[in-house]
């Protein structure tokens, strides 16, 4: 098996971490084991980018072992082992790419850990700071979720720009990851940015689902945001492609339908500029809890 990813990673990445960055993300304890070239600097960058998700102590919240994701910065001249999203180890000499792949590895790890417990939608979530009413904006990757958080988030609280995890009781488990922003000067590599740098804060009140919006960005759209109310079956059909772990969740169609019915059903919003979604976000975040 010479040359396989596991062997390559064992050759390059030491087992013993030089630094550990403890996170609590999507309700899951995650330890980032940081090693390699200038590991202290990498650990500091991770603490800065993940500041809203840092675990105050090394001790896990619920007594279970944290999920471990290994981050290894290669020295100049080191050969990178092949990267896989679910590999649990990220090794790279390029700091930006390393941070991006680490975010993806953490996302994969926590989604895997919570599969079956949470109804997970590929979505941005913003919550009212006082009531916790959360507007869930569902959209595929690279279609504006992070921009929405940057633009509409500072007057609310940040729940996620990637995955919104809904519990059976309607509560939302935040995933306070760095904002992953496509850079025009870095083809294919996103910039991982600390949410606090753009004025985003962690939820002060426990978030709960107040409404679900299916986003459809159309740069040619003119005028006010187009709003189309979806019946329950249409909404479920629209949302399931943007879900995670559906097949390993008990009764996911009925669970999602229950969320939709309780929150007044989903709307599809067609928009050109994210600022146009402000009234919709405000309306949803002003709702009373149906839970």
């Amino acid at each position, binding site marked *: 098996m010479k040359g396989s990813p596991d062997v390559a990673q064992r050759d390059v990445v030491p087992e013993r971490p030089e630094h550990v960055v403890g996170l609590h993300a999507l309700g899951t304890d995650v330890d980032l084991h940081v090693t390699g070239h200038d590991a202290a600097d990498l650990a500091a960058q991770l603490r800065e980018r993940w500041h809203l998700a840092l675990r105050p102590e090394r001790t896990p919240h619920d007594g279970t072992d944290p999920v471990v994701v290994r981050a290894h910065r290669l020295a100049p001249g080191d050969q990178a082992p092949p990267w896989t999203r679910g590999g649990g180890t990220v090794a790279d000499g390029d700091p930006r790419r390393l941070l991006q792949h680490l975010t993806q590895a953490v996302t994969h790890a926590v989604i895997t850990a919570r599969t079956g417990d949470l109804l997970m939608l590929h979505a941005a979530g913003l919550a009212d700071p006082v009531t916790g009413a959360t507007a869930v904006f569902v959209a595929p990757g690279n279609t504006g979720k992070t921009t929405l958080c940057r633009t509409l988030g500072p007057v609310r609280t940040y729940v996620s720009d990637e995955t919104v995890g809904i519990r059976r009781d309607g509560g939302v488990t935040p995933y306070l990851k760095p904002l992953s922003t496509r850079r025009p000067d870095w083809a294919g590599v996103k910039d991982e940015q600390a949410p606090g740098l753009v004025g985003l804060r962690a939820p002060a009140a426990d978030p709960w689902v107040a409404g679900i919006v299916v986003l459809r960005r159309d740069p040619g759209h003119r005028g006010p945001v187009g709003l189309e109310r979806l019946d329950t*079956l249409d909404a479920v*059909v629209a949302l399931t492609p943007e879900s995670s772990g559906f097949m390993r969740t008990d009764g996911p169609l009925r669970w999602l339908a229950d969320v939709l019915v309780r929150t007044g059903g989903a709307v599809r919003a067609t928009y050109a500029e994210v600022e146009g979604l402000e009234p919709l976000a405000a309306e949803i975040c002003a709702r009373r809890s149906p839970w």
Partner: protein
Amino acid sequence: MVSGPAQEGMPSARTVVRTVPAHDELHRDGESLVLLDGQVRRVSVLGTLVRDRARDGLGVAELAEVLAEEFGPPPDGDTLGTTAQVVATLLSVGLLEVLDDLEDPAG
């Protein structure tokens, strides 16, 4: 009820089919969504009733009687043909399975 010769690829009146169990189903106003093998499929009112009645296995002719009783005859009057078409569609996407494909004595 009109019974015509089975078309190629279509189940005959004596074909016995059974509903393939889904991971989850959601029913609204007679229609349904069915989650099976990682795919969500929207199933018509007719298809939903067929899947409901074929849980323990049922022949296409018997399913045609069920549909006729529930909805009356189709516009073209060919209840068996319409039922066979619905069954064929459900078979093609894996929402039904053939339990027994008995030869039609009429040929």
